[in-house]
C-alpha cells in the first residue's frame, strides 16, 4: 500500500494571476502581467530582475500601496484572506502586523523631521494602543539592539545616520509588530559591498531566529543564492524562471537568468575576464512587447519558434520551471 503523502499546510502567501496596470487610456502600462507564486511559513523566496521588470510594483501591490492610478487584479491570499478584497479597516490592521516591508534605505525613506525612535514607536502604538510610553521606548530600544544599533540612536534624526545604519533601522522598524512575512525591497542596493554583506548577514540571522517568511527583491542574483531557498526571476512583468536557489544560480534554465548570473564578476576567475558579459539592448517597453517570448530580441539562444510561441512556465526539472522553449518540458519542437 503506497503511503498517502501528507497534505502540505496551506501556504502563508499565495499569489494568483496578479496584474498591475498603470493608467487607463491607450497609454496604459502593464507592469505586472500575471504572476503566481506561493510562500510557506518560514520560507525565503528571492525575486530577481532588472529595473523595470515589475518587481517593485509587485511588492507594492501585495499591501495595496501603489499610487491611486494603479489597477491591481488577481488574488493575494494572506493566510487564506484576499488582501485585494479587504475592507480598508481590515487592510490597515493587517499592514505591518502580518506583512511588513523593508524599503530601500535611501535618505527620504524615513521622515526627515522626526526622530528615529518616534517613527518606530508610531508603528507599535498604532497596533498595540494599550502599550504605554515607557514600554514603547523599551520596545524601540530592543528593536534597535536586535538590528545591531545602540538603543540611544532612537534620539537621532535620519540624516544623522549612515546608509547602513538607516537600513538597519528600517529592518528593525519592519519587525516592530512581529509580522510573519517580510518583503525586503532592494534592501542592500544602495550600500557599499562591505556594508551589504553585514546587512545580508543580519537579515539571514533574523530570518532564522524569528522564523520569518521573506520575499527578497533585488537585481543582484548572487546575493539571493545564499540568502534564499528559492529564486524566481522576473522579466517584462512575468516570472520566467523559478526553482531552488542553488540550482537556478549554478545551472540556469532560462537564457535571461544565465545572463543575470553572468553579469556579476567573480573576482579571480580568469575565464570571466575573457568572456564577454552584460546584456546587450534595453529592457522592453511594456506597452510594446514583441510577439511570442518578450526576451527574444536580446536572447542569444533565440530560434524561429520563439516569435510565434506564447511562452509560459514549463517544468524544467523537479520543482523547477522556466518559460523558455528550450526547456525539455516545454513540448515545443525547436
Amino acid at each position, binding site marked *: 500500500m503506497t503511503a498517502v503523502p501528507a497534505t502540505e499546510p496551506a501556504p502563508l502567501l499565495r499569489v494568483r494571476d496578479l496584474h498591475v496596470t498603470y493608467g487607463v487610456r491607450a497609454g496604459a502600462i502593464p507592469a505586472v502581467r500575471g504572476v503566481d507564486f506561493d510562500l510557506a511559513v518560514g520560507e525565503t523566496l528571492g525575486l530577481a530582475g532588472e529595473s523595470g521588470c515589475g518587481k517593485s510594483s509587485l511588492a507594492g501591490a501585495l499591501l495595496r*500601496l501603489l499610487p491611486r492610478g494603479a489597477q491591481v487584479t488577481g488574488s493575494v491570499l494572506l493566510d487564506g484572506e484576499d488582501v485585494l478584497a479587504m475592507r480598508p479597516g481590515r487592510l490597515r490592521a493587517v*499592514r*505591518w502586523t502580518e506583512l511588513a*516591508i523593508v524599503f530601500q534605505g*535611501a535618505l*527620504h525613506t524615513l*521622515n526627515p*523631521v522626526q526622530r528615529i525612535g518616534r517613527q518606530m514607536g508610531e508603528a507599535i502604538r498604532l497596533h498595540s494602543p494599550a502599550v504605554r510610553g515607557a514600554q514603547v521606548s523599551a520596545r524601540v530600544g530592543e528593536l534597535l539592539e536586535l538590528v545591531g544599533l545602540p538603543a540611544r540612536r532612537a534620539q537621532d534624526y535620519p*540624516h544623522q545616520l549612515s546608509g547602513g545604519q538607516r537600513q538597519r533601522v528600517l529592518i528593525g522598524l519592519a519587525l516592530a509588530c512581529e509580522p510573519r512575512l517580510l518583503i525586503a525591497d532592494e534592501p542592500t542596493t544602495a550600500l557599499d559591498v562591505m556594508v551589504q554583506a553585514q546587512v545580508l548577514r543580519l537579515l539571514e540571522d533574523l530570518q532564522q531566529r524569528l522564523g520569518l517568511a521573506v520575499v527578497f527583491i533585488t537585481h543582484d542574483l548572487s546575493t539571493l543564492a545564499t540568502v534564499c531557498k528559492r529564486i524566481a526571476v522576473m522579466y517584462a512583468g512575468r516570472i520566467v524562471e523559478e526553482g531552488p536557489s542553488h540550482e537556478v544560480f549554478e545551472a540556469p534554465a532560462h537564457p535571461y537568468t544565465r545572463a543575470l548570473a553572468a553579469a556579476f564578476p567573480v573576482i579571480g576567475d580568469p575565464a570571466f575576464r575573457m568572456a564577454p558579459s552584460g546584456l546587450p539592448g534595453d529592457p522592453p517597453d511594456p506597452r510594446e512587447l514583441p510577439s511570442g517570448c518578450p526576451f527574444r530580441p536580446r536572447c542569444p539562444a533565440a530560434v524561429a519558434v520563439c516569435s510565434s510561441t506564447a511562452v509560459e512556465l514549463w517544468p524544467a526539472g523537479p520543482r523547477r520551471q522556466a518559460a523558455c522553449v528550450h526547456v525539455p518540458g516545454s513540448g515545443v519542437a525547436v
Partner: protein
Amino acid sequence: MSARFVTAKVLGSLATLAFVVAFNFFLFRVVEGDPVASLFRGRNLSQSQRAELTRQFGLDGSTGEQFVRYVGQTAQLNLGRTYSNNQPVASEIWHKAGPTVALVGISTLLSTIFGVMLGIAAGWRRRTKTDYAVTSFTMATYAMPEFWLGMLLLTGLAVGLGWFPVGGIVDPNSDATGLAKLADQAKHMFLPGLTLTLAYLGEYALVMRSSLLETMREDYLVLARAKGLRDIVVRNRHAVPNALLPVVTLIAINFGFVLSGAIAVEAIFSWPGLGLATYDALQGPDLPMLQGLFLVFSGAVIAANLFADLLYGYLDPRVRTA
C-alpha cells in the same frame, strides 16, 4: 539650537540693518543739494540765518562728519523732524504704528491660516474641482493690484451696500469707549483687513499646494501608509509638517509685500497707519519722514526674516544640526 547658528543669523541681520542706515544717509545727501534753500524758497534769508538753519538741520560739516552724526542720531532714535509740521519723525511714526501693526498682523495671520488650509485641500486631491478652484482663485488675486481689490470692496460693500464704513478707524461722531470702541474699530478694519487677506492668501495656498505635492512623492509617506496609518493621519502627521517648511520662509518673504501693500490699501481706506503716513509724506515730498519710514519698514522686514530663519532652524532639524 546651537548658539553659533543663532549668533550668525543675528549678526547677519544687524549687518543688513547697518547697510540700510548708510544707504538712507547717502541717498538723500547725494540728491538733496541744499535742503535749506529748497525748504525756505521764497523767503529771504540772511547769511547768518542760513548758517544757523544749516547747523540746526545738521547739514554743516563734511560728509563724513554728517554721516557720523547721522548714525549717532539714528542710534538714539532721533530721526529728524518732518518737513510738513516740524514734528519729530520718530514720534510721528510711533503714534501711527499701532493701526498698521493691527491691520498687517491680523491679515497675515488670516491669510496664512486660510491659505495653508486651501493649499492642503488642493494639493492632497490634485486635479479635482477643489484644486482647479483654488488655483484659479489664486491666479486671479495675484494678478490684480491689491489696492484695486480694495477699491472694488469699498464701492461694493461700503458705498454701495452700506454694510461697512468708508474709511478711518473710528466713527468720528461717536465717543464710545472700551468694548464698544473696539467693536467700532473692528468694523472699520474689516474691509482693509479683508483686502490684504485676500490679496496674499492665494500665494500661501499655492506654495503650500506645490510643497505638499513635492512631499507627496517622498518615500516616507509610502512607509507611513504601509504601517497601517489612515490617509488623513499620514497627511497631517507626516506630509504636512514637512510641506509647511517652505511656508514659514514664505511668511517672512511675504511680510515685506504685505507691508508694501498696506501703503496703498491704507490710503484707500484712510486707515491712519504708517501706510497712510507714507502716502501723505509723498505729497511733499516730506523727505525726513520718508527716510524714517523707510528705516522702520526695512527694520521690520529684517526682523521678520530673522524670526523666520530661526523658526525654520527650529522646525527642520537638518538645518540646525548641520
